[in-house]
């Protein structure tokens, strides 16, 4: 009895949870095409006008620009720092390794509100103007642990004697890193970069304290929620963003798989 019942119960439960997880996203996408200002059932007919309004909205385009800029900058820096950190902690078992790892991983658990306000105080104290750039500085901090994790899991997967071989053949240590280690890790580096980019692009809590007048996309979105007439535009934007991030994350996940599968075989 039990043996027959459990699997079906489990799969039904799994399907229900999945449905609940995807439903809000699906609803946003459906309503982004709905020809009505109010977000209520029943649906009123198909339209693309909300998507059209997005491209006429200068403030929005500026916010997208800010988000792309700090997303790109902070992910680049975080990927570089994360890679350096990952190589250091995977390849060297030296004193200082654990404390570095602990400090670099700490932003994973510290509430973003605390990171945000502490930087607000610091920037105010030393006279750095609040801006998208200031938020970008903070995004590097929250992205480093993710970049480190992705790159480190790749480094663990291949032996360091490849670097040694390159050095035996006359490469300097840094030459071996650049010409052997980095190319082998390149899918992981891309995955790390994309992951960091998604984190920065979506980050609201810290940015809300630091951006000043350069609203990033999440900050702009949040400010628009107060105006009921802007809702359809926000929903259309949300639909685009969710679809794009899901696609990017699927690609990142696939990259990570590709990266890790040879290690599992060997």
């Amino acid at each position: 009895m039990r043996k027959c019942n459990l699997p079906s119960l489990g799969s039904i439960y799994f399907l229900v949870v999945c449905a609940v997880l995807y439903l809000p996203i699906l609803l946003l996408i459906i309503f982004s095409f709905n020809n009505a200002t109010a977000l209520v059932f029943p649906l009123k007919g198909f339209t693309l006008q909300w998507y059209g309004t997005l491209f006429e909205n200068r403030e929005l385009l500026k916010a997208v620009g800010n988000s792309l800029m700090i997303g790109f900058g902070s992910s680049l820096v975080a990927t570089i720092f994360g890679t350096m950190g990952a190589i250091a902690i995977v390849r060297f078992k030296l004193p200082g390794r654990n404390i570095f790892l602990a400090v670099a991983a700490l932003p994973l658990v510290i509430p973003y509100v605390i990171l945000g306000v502490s930087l607000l105080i610091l920037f105010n104290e030393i006279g750095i103007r609040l801006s998208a750039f200031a938020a970008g500085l903070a995004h590097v901090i929250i992205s480093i642990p993710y970049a480190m994790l992705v790159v480190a899991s790749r480094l663990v997967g291949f032996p360091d004697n490849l670097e040694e071989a390159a050095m035996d053949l006359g490469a300097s240590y840094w030459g071996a890193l650049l010409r052997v280690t980095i190319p082998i890790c390149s899918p992981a580096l891309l995955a790390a970069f994309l992951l960091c980019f998604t984190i920065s692009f979506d980050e609201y809590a810290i940015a809300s304290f630091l951006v000043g007048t350069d609203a990033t996309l999440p900050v702009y979105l949040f400010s628009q929620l107060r105006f009921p007439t802007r809702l359809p535009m926000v929903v259309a934007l949300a639909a685009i963003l969710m679809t794009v991030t899901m696609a990017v994350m699927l690609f990142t996940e696939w990259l990570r798989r590709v990266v890790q599968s040879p290690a599992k075989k060997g």
Partner: protein
Amino acid sequence: MENRSRFASLIGPPSLYLLLIFLLPMGVMFVYSFRAGIAGVAYDTFTLANYQSFLTNSHFHRLLWRSAGISFTISVISSLLAYPLAYYLVFKAGPNRVTLLTLLIIPAWTSYLLRVFAWKLILGSSGLLNSLLLSIGLIEVASPILIYSRGAVIVTLIYVWVPFVALPIFAALERIDKNLLEAAADLGCQPWEAFLRITLPLSFPGILAGLFFALIPTLGEFVTPLLVGGVSGSMYGNLIQDQFMRALNWPMGSVMSLAMLVAVLLLVFILTRLSSLTDLVRFS
């Protein structure tokens, strides 16, 4: 010696960055917590008054306990919901389990702000849930079912955290040696007995990690309460945000932030004592 200098060159730049943009602000915030104000004479006056008023203000304590209660509720319910998911994936889903796990995680990677926003639209009094119920005739008048309440905050955050809580539980269940269960069955153990005496105890580190996965980040939550919480659903994070953005009492806000920081670090310390940290990062 050579290794040492290579190691130093590798961790030097990121360490310097962490020092300046992460540790230094924490230090400056600590100094701020003793200031009497943020301008003029008050700025240069150092005092313990902020700590004193933090310790005596019952409004702060109420919000702190309420936040802790909300976070605790979220993490317990999320773990209860996530456990059967992870169990199903590991023991019943067969070779597809990693793909199915990914399916579960994908929505969690989309914008957190937008998912909370979606729930605001669903739960709102002129929202989707209400209009759906109205249009199919289940209810006669639109009612503010859930929005702007503690319940709305809890429901929304459970939605956000269930997939993440499932990860460490999945990892813990995967590690269980399936021979143990077979041996138990061979020795005449009922399936539920084997579950209670083998699977559940062995997956305990995963459950614990899952609990903390939801508990730690939700403690500092302030965005979700802003969107769906209303007055009764506001949390400690909102109080901190208020001190900085509205009340402009930065020293008081610093004290509150430090109190939360200590609480979170304490939780993390307990977690690392209870289960090894390497287990946690394996699947995240």
